[in-house]
């Protein structure tokens, strides 16, 4: 890939960045885009956005398996009570019928 270091053209950057949500959403590799090949600024932007997306996948998903059980046992007690209350109400309803 050719990587020329030129001064960013704000108008070209503006136009490219306007298209970015669609370009990224399409899943196509952006490295081959003509503007990216000539603009270090937009290359850095794309690199950062990819880093953030990757960090979210790696760091935040890992966190789920490592985190303390913040929800604690008290939550199960609440759920258990609510289930029993629902089942009790349902049983009473059936008896009335």
């Amino acid at each position, binding site marked *: 890939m050719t990587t020329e270091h030129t001064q960013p053209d704000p108008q070209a950057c503006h136009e490219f960045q306007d298209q970015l*949500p669609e370009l990224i959403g399409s899943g196509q590799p952006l490295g081959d885009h003509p503007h990216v090949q000539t603009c270090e600024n937009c290359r*850095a932007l794309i690199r*950062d956005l990819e880093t953030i*997306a990757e960090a979210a*996948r790696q760091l935040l998903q890992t966190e*789920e398996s490592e*985190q303390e059980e913040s929800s604690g046992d008290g*939550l199960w007690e609440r*759920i258990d009570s609510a289930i029993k209350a629902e089942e009790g109400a349902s049983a009473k309803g059936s008896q009335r019928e």
Partner: protein
Amino acid sequence: MPQPNAADATATSNPGESGKTATPHRNVGRTLPANLAEQEALTRAQQGDHQAFAYLYSLHKRRIYSLCLRMVNNVAEAEDLTQEAFLQLHRKIATFRGDSAFSTWLHRLAVNVVLMHLRKKGIPVTSLDEAMEPTHEDGPGKSFGAPDLSLIGSIDRLTLEKAVADLPAGYRLVFILHDVEGYEHNEIATMLECSIGNSKSQLHKARLRLRESLHSVVRLEARR
């Protein structure tokens, strides 16, 4: 009722299904592949077995709580929503037919619980651009001029967590659903009742906002 504990599972392995999985759950007996235990528990829970339901809770509570917490950014609300998600699971578990993985089905159920809650609270998840996006002045700007310090290798979990928590609600929802939970734009659009283009746009703006936030941290660190 005893506390649910994955180690309490009494499911036994079915040799005929042994090829289905190879990853044992860390809390289940060493010889018992996790999804066989889960499958057995699921079948029993669908038949009304309370212990089996408690076991399913123990398997999935962390992920569901974590999802709720990230989406609402409030511990008390996250606990309430986790409770509601499992209550709904209890009501609906008999309708699960296995068209998708159980974890996927439960996850979607929990997302819907959270979205319903947000709608009740008055956060209009159906109109992200109009109601949840910051004003144009304080939204993430375009990037011109010299590149800033690179973020590569400089993002840690806590910094990212805080930056995500500080996102406006609409940005945070789409970012979590797409980048953390792995939903596709078409799925997010369906869940949030918005267009696919809207979902892509919100995700992009969320990442831009995170970039600004993370660069601030990197610049601060560099000055020290």
